[in-house]
């Protein structure tokens, strides 16, 4: 399911309803950044080539260097800010990997926050990267140790997200933002509302048979049924057999799928009625 295993962060909307967001995976963020980074370089390359086509090759190496430096600086400084402003907290890389930036406290994502979190990137990534490539560019006459220091610096900042619960990098800390998985669940058919197969009609379960399981088992069953007709038939047979054994089902049953659907509907009905009375049953071992 959507939140399976992922860390979540609860954000209370201004309307007072708590919403859960899944924190973006570190790998997704690295991938998004890499993609954006490549796009930035491609954009700079295109800009420099375009200027050369306009001006002509004769203009010389100085102009090439100047244009490339300026273009690189402008593009890398404003690329992230521009896209996160106009695409609601997403850059092309983030959109591709399905993640986005939100305000950590649930307020609107402000322009300042976007600007700040992206300016810090300069120190987190670009500066040490430059230092790594050529220490002289950052600090003329720098000793060779600078490259190692830059590497350490980059590692420290790059790995920082792995050492806190919300996967925050320095820019997120300073700007008060958080990167989450872009919500994207689809609404599927209600398993209860779908017409039951004729064979499943008349399947009735006693209260004791339904009280064997709790919500956790209900959701596992839902997952199995929602995997669609193509789901592994052997898994379905195994689950059906186990449930039959557990509830002591004696009567002849229709095919496994119809049986499981009927049991799911009955179990959900039973658990929801309990829920209305304020009695939650989290899982089969929960005897409250």
């Amino acid at each position, binding site marked *: *399911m*959507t*939140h399976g295993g992922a860390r979540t962060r609860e954000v209370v*909307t201004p309307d007072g*309803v708590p*919403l859960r967001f899944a924190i973006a995976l570190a790998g997704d963020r690295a991938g998004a950044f890499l993609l954006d980074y490549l796009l930035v370089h491609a954009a700079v390359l295109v800009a420099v080539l375009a200027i050369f086509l306009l001006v002509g090759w004769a203009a*010389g190496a*100085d*102009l090439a*260097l*100047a*244009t490339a*430096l*300026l273009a690189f*600086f402008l593009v890398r*400084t404003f690329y992230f800010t521009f896209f996160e*402003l*106009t695409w*609601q*907290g997403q850059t092309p890389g983030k959109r591709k990997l399905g993640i*986005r930036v939100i305000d950590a406290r649930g307020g609107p*994502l*402000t*322009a*300042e926050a*976007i*600007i*700040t979190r992206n*300016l810090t990137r*300069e*120190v*987190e990534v670009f*500066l040490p990267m430059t230092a790594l490539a050529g220490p*002289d560019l950052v600090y*003329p*006459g720098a000793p060779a140790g600078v490259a190692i220091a830059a590497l350490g610096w980059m590692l420290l900042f790059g790995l920082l997200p792995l050492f806190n619960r919300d996967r925050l990098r*320095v820019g997120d*800390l*300073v*700007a*008060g933002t958080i990167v989450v998985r872009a*919500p*994207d*669940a689809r*609404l*599927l058919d*209600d398993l*209860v*509302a779908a017409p*039951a197969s004729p064979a499943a*009609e008349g*399947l*009735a379960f006693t209260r004791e048979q339904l009280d064997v399981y709790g919500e956790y088992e209900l959701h596992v069953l*839902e997952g199995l049924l929602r995997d669609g007709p193509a789901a592994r038939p052997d898994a379905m047979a195994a689950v059906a057999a186990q449930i039959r054994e557990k509830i002591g089902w004696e009567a002849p049953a229709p095919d496994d799928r119809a049986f499981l659907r009927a049991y799911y*509907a009955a179990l*959900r009905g039973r*658990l*929801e009625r309990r*829920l*209305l009375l304020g009695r939650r049953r989290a899982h089969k071992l929960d005897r409250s």
Partner: protein
Amino acid sequence: MTVVLKSAAFRAEREPSWRELEGLLDRVERWGLPSLAAGEVARLPALYRAALSSLSVARAISLDRNVLDYLETLSARAYLVVYGTRRHLRDALGDFFVRRFPGAVRAHRRELALAIALIAVGAGVGHALTAADAERFYAFVAPEMAQGRGPTSSTESLREVLYAPRDAAQLLKTFAMFLFQHNATIGLLAFAVGFAGGVPSALLLFTNGLVLGAFGALYRSRGLALDFWGWVLPHGVTELLAVALCGAAGLALGQAVLFPGREERLAGLARRGREAGVLAVGAVALFFAAALVEGLFRQLVHSVPVRYAVAAGTFLFWTVYLGRAGSRA
């Protein structure tokens, strides 16, 4: 068995409004808010609140995991659209330069004063030390910055740099670009290292002052002081202001780290970071303006009085703009 579950009935009743909201969100996420008709935009907040209320009900009565997940993500998507940034970049920029940036500068006037003071003290120290012993020039100024200038250069070659003929324009253009890139990076660095308590920012400001002072002393020793400051100040006013702004932003960050006051340290850092980020972005624009003056004006105009007049003009302009723009006084 035709028992209708409460959760199923609930879903059947509310589903059309969820689907409507989902359709609108799909379009907004793909093509932006302007792709919606006026009536649809007006429906958005109502549908968003309906989805939130559905979510609250579903949490209380439904055990259909898919419906819960769907409503949660639907509400989250709608929330991001309703409360997300949605200003056009142009409006955001206009608002930024007319109101927000000057306002942020005024809000940080103490940090700015401190940053300017640090540069000035650095320049004074650099000037005094280099004047006392010319060899110290090499300690303060990196070879790339010096561009071959130094205590051993002839007065003529030093003078030449100040009044470069136009055919060297290509070279100077590169230099201007490099300087813009270099300075802006230094500036952003001064801002971003601020979270380390502000000390690195202060240090950067001071060393920048040292470089300036060292150059000043070098030219003064050749009797070119007036020419040198005429060469530096037209763009230098803007550029130093930009460096000072970045430094002030860094100092503000450092302050938030060291003296959180009543606020939680991280929350304070986030709040101040946002305010200070405004300064840094404004400073980048200043760097750009400075590079333009440096790359074009300085190559074309060699008259010393005009250079000083431009320096004074830019100073006046920034004072008035940053001091007055957007204030309701």
